[in-house]
């Protein structure tokens, strides 16, 4: 037993606080928008140049001029504002976004994050990920705890090229929730039906008490 994609997204949504401006990455982080708690008002930023991102359009109402950072058609909301990409990253770099929720290939116990390239494989680029992890107030990573080979993705140090150094604050994986603290990671929560032993066994990084 462990959390599935939707449960991870739902758990990540608990991180959100009322009034926050938030950037959600591609993949599981996108699903977080479906689980924003009642009474919590969150404004989603899309780094191509939009605050107040709404849901996908109804069929037939797609607008080629209205897309998100994943290039998907979206809609606007009553509070929406559009701006150019230099302004968009000015607010990201300037610390105006309270939180980014992102996927990861690897996270290290010191908060290093790798999520953009695998040497020798197809490199498509970092997009806005390096700017986000360098600039936003809090970085939460949502990912599977292990790769398809069963190897830990929560490491003593990343083997892949970094997206950012010491940037991750919290990891939400299928096995539970861990915080980056001095000396390593601290278990905050175990996923449903996961034991601490299981989580520790799947984690290469140092876990502190």
């Amino acid at each position, binding site marked *: 037993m462990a959390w599935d994609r939707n449960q991870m997204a739902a758990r990540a949504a608990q991180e959100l606080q009322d009034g926050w401006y938030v950037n959600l990455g591609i993949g599981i982080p996108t699903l977080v928008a479906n689980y924003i708690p009642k009474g919590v008002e969150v404004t989603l930023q899309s780094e191509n140049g939009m605050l107040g991102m709404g849901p996908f359009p109804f*069929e037939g109402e797609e607008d080629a*001029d209205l897309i998100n950072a994943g*290039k998907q058609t979206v809609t606007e909301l009553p509070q929406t504002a*559009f701006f*150019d*990409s230099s302004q968009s990253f000015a607010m990201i770099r300037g610390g105006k976004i309270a939180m980014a929720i992102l996927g990861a290939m690897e996270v290290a116990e010191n908060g290093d994050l790798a999520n953009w390239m695998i040497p020798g494989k*197809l490199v498509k680029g970092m997009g806005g990920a390096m700017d986000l992890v360098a600039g936003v107030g809090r970085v939460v990573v949502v990912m599977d705890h292990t790769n398809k080979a069963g190897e830990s993705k929560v490491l003593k140090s990343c083997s892949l090229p970094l997206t950012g150094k010491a940037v991750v604050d919290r990891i939400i994986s299928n096995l539970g929730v861990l915080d980056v603290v001095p000396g390593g990671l601290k278990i905050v929560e175990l996923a449903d039906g996961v034991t601490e032993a299981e989580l520790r066994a799947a984690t290469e990084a140092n876990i502190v008490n």
Partner: protein
Amino acid sequence: MKKVFKDADAALDGTLFDGMLIAAGGFGLCGIPELLIAAIKKAGTKNLTVASNNCGVDGFGLGQLLDTRQIKKMMSSYVGENAEFMRQFLSKELEVEFNPQGTLAERMRAGGAGIPGFYTKTGVGTIIAEGKEHKDFNGETYILERGIVADLSIVKAWKADPSGNLVFRKTARNFNPPAATCGKICVAEVEEIVPLGSLDPDTIHTPGIYVHRIIQGEHEKRIEQRTTRKREAA
């Protein structure tokens, strides 16, 4: 002061040369200068370096200039929605300089604003920082990034007036305003040229001073990822 040209070929006349640096607006296929890209293909200008967040798709947008091998180097943040791109990239026929997206946007803005260099935290401790000057401010480390000044900027706007004032629509604004500022010459293609005085001066995104030539034309405006939701039954 005649800024309005009859078509993309006329608007680019005299601005193109082999080995030049072109800054292009657009994000994915949204807000890209379709008509100007097609005209550059037709002109056959070679050994281009193109600063653009992405590089189009096979056969559309900047992807067209890959088919003709006109691009020598891309300065981008995310590429490879495009089989031909990947083929040229992997075979080292095409050079790619990866820039974090915000760094690329700011480099264009800086180049247009007379700022040759600025410090950013983005990329510190990553391969992006290699070979770049590091400097501490208030106990934190930053790297020096350079402004981009292009030989030519090509952008796509929604509306223009004859003085070159531009208005963009929704997220099609994206990289277009910073790209417009960083070119020694900027050519803009728009969906509609409106009479002078019909744009509200408080709502102009790119003032005409940045824009040297304008054309009006039809745009395909292709959608890259058509995502929708179903209407709930009433």
